[in-house]
Structure formats: structure tokens, C-alpha cells
């Protein structure tokens, strides 16, 4: 069980020297290098916006706006933070603003008030030991995972995406969403257990195990 940390601490390493140099040059006015700087994170920026807005064209627009904001604010960036985290936080803030503007905040206020402290009991204890990462090569598997995630309530989905997909830590997730650390932990637990339930059922039905390259043979 000691390897538990390995799974969750696979976060993106601190800025490489190349990245630090790029940041420095953009901060000195070489704006044309900015795209090279953000390129490794553009997918994650989009995913963060998408988690909050759930609409591809809005998410793309917000992702672009967030990048422009980051460029304008690049001099405020301090090298003791991770650049990717800074980018994601700007993006989440931008996406939340957009959503508030669109919906006038009413829906969220009601939604967030719902009790989230009640315990969640797992439903399914299917033995789900090994998931070869090749499973993700299959579009069907990726779609199943995406559907399961999309079926979660907004508050669980957002926390899960920021922590487990975007690799923000608990404190950064709390800051980005404007909620307490305790809420992040509670929601994260719920999100992870619900996803496990949703996917363990799929495991039992065998859609994970029908891997194209299992045991070196192709099923077709």
C-alpha cells in the first residue's frame, strides 16, 4: 500500500530551465514567444474551461481569453509558483466569471447549498485490479470515462477535474474555485467514489477487459 502516493503525486514537475527562460524573455517584452510558452498547457487550459462551462465553443473562447489575460499579466507571475498552475487558475477564474455572467449566479447559489456532508456508501465491490493504460487507446473507453465524468454533479466534477486531471493540489483547487479546503476534500472523495462505482460496473460488463492488444493478440 506504500505506493499510494505515487498515484496522486504524479503532478507536473516544476518549470524546466527552458520554461523559466521563456517566461523571463516574455516578461521582458518578447511577446512572440508566449505561444511557445503556453503550448504544453493549451490542452489542460481548454479542459479546465470545459469542466466549468460544458460547451466547446464557450470553453475555447474562454481558454483564449485566459491566455490573453495571462500574457497581459505575465509580469505578475512569480517564479516560485508553477506556471501551469497559474495559467489554470486564471482560466478557472475566467470561466467562472463567464458562467456567472451567463446565468446571473442564481443556479449556483441554490446548487451549492445542497448538503454534501452525508456519507457516500460505495455500491459495487467488483474486483478491479489492473487497468492497462493501453485501455485509453480505445476511443470507446475514453468516451465511457468522459460520459461518467459528465454525469457527475457540477460541484463534484469541477473539483475532480482540477485536482485529478489538471493536477492542482488541494489548496490550489480550493483557491481556484473559491471554496474551502474541507469542501474540496469532501467533494473529491465523493467524485472519486462515484466514478469508481460507475466504472466498476463497466468493468464487470467487460468493456475494459476487451482490450485490442491483450496478451499480444488482436481480437479481429
Amino acid at each position, binding site marked *: 500500500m506504500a505506493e*499510494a502516493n505515487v498515484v496522486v503525486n504524479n503532478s507536473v514537475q516544476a518549470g524546466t530551465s527552458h520554461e523559466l527562460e521563456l517566461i523571463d524573455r516574455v516578461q521582458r517584452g518578447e*511577446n512572440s514567444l508566449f505561444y511557445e510558452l503556453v*503550448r504544453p498547457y493549451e*490542452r489542460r487550459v481548454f*479542459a479546465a474551461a470545459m469542466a466549468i462551462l460544458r460547451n466547446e465553443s464557450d470553453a475555447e473562447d474562454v481558454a483564449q481569453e485566459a491566455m490573453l489575460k495571462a500574457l497581459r499579466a505575465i509580469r505578475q507571475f512569480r517564479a516560485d509558483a508553477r506556471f501551469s498552475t497559474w495559467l489554470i487558475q486564471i482560466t478557472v477564474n475566467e470561466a467562472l466569471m463567464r458562467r456567472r455572467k451567463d446565468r446571473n449566479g*442564481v443556479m449556483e447559489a441554490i446548487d451549492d447549498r445542497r448538503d454534501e456532508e452525508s456519507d457516500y456508501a460505495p455500491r459495487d465491490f467488483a474486483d478491479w485490479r489492473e*487497468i492497462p493504460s493501453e485501455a485509453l487507446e480505445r476511443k470507446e473507453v*475514453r468516451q465511457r470515462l468522459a460520459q461518467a465524468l459528465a454525469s457527475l454533479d457540477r460541484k463534484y466534477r469541477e473539483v475532480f477535474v482540477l485536482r485529478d486531471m489538471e493536477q492542482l493540489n488541494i489548496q490550489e483547487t480550493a*483557491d481556484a474555485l473559491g471554496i474551502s479546503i474541507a469542501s474540496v476534500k469532501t467533494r473529491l*472523495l465523493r467524485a472519486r467514489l462515484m466514478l469508481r462505482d460507475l466504472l466498476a460496473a463497466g468493468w464487470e460488463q467487460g468493456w475494459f477487459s476487451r482490450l485490442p492488444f491483450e496478451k499480444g493478440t488482436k481480437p479481429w
Partner: protein
Amino acid sequence: MVNDNIVNCEHVWREISNYLEDDVDASFRSRMDEHFQTCSACRSLLEGTRNVIQLYSDERMIEVPSGFGSRLQHRLAQSRRAPGRSWSPWSAWLVPLAALLLITGGVRIASSRTVPQPLLSAHAQPARNIPPDMVVVVSADAKQFHVPGCEFIHNKERERTLTAKEAVDQGYVPCVRCLRKYLQTASAGRTSLEMEATSEPDIAGPKQDGGE
């Protein structure tokens, strides 16, 4: 959290996420480990939850619309060409100039008042439980401090970065939009709509750039 020595399945369900974050104390962790040795259902739960984290953390899970990267690149390039938006090299002169203004302003404030400063706004709610070293942004003639990139920063040309503690000490209060959770009334049972309504005059304060 759990005082007795027995760890049952419900304890495990409640703590499994923290366990995977390595965020449970050592003695509870070892009792959970013992439980996993004997309880196959919880062991399967642990493996499954770990699988979930592993699968979703994979970059392949993120799909972007085709052409996303090139459209982004195009928009960034466009913004560089747009007049008034670009930072030509000589505009770097503005930075030390603004810094000078802020420093002299800061010295004036510091010499005229003792720390902590009274709140700059009569409508303001002081900050509550804000992490002191959180990086925030203020602008010279506004009353609130913000998360970098917040849309409600007035007079963005004159913004500066500081820690939340410095901002609080200088009399700034959290932005009611981007730092709402740190307002004193945030958990006191008022709805967010009421809060926004009462805070509105404060936000509207100095109008855009005309406030100077």
C-alpha cells in the same frame, strides 16, 4: 477523527480519498493498511479508486476541438498587432515609473497611519481566514484586492502584486467576486445574491478608468 482502534469499512470509505492523498496520520494509516489486508471489498475499493485517478490523469483523456492550437496562436498574434494592446519595448519604462508612484504612495500611507490600516471602504467586509501568503493584486486607487486576472480590477494599468497579508494590512478588502469565500459574511447564512446587492456600490466605486 476515529478514536477507537478498530477501523471498519465505513471509516475506510470516508478516508480513502485522503489515504490516496497521503493525508491521514500515520497511526490511522497503518490501521487502514491492516484493514486492507483482511477486507477484500475495501481492497478492491482502493484499487478501483486508484485506477480512476490514474486513468483520468492521463493526457489522452483531454480532447480539444480540431484546430484549437492554431486558432489560439492566431488570436495571440492578432492581439500583438492590435493597437493599444501591444507592449512595445519602450513601454517597459512605464513599469519602474508606476513602481515609483506606488512606492511614494505607499510611503505616504505608511507614514500617515499605523499598521493595520483602517479599511479603505465604508461598505467593506474585512477578510476572514485568507492565506496570508496568497498572491493577490490591487490597483492604486481601488479598495479591493483580487486574484490575478480578475475581471473586476479597476485601473489595470496601475495594478501591483502583493501578498494577501500585505493587502489586508494596507486596508484592502477581498473582492466580492473572485475572493467571495474569504468575506466575513460568506458563511453567515446570507445568500450570495444579497451579498452582491449590498456590495454593489463598492464595486461600482471609481468608474472604469475615469476614477482618477
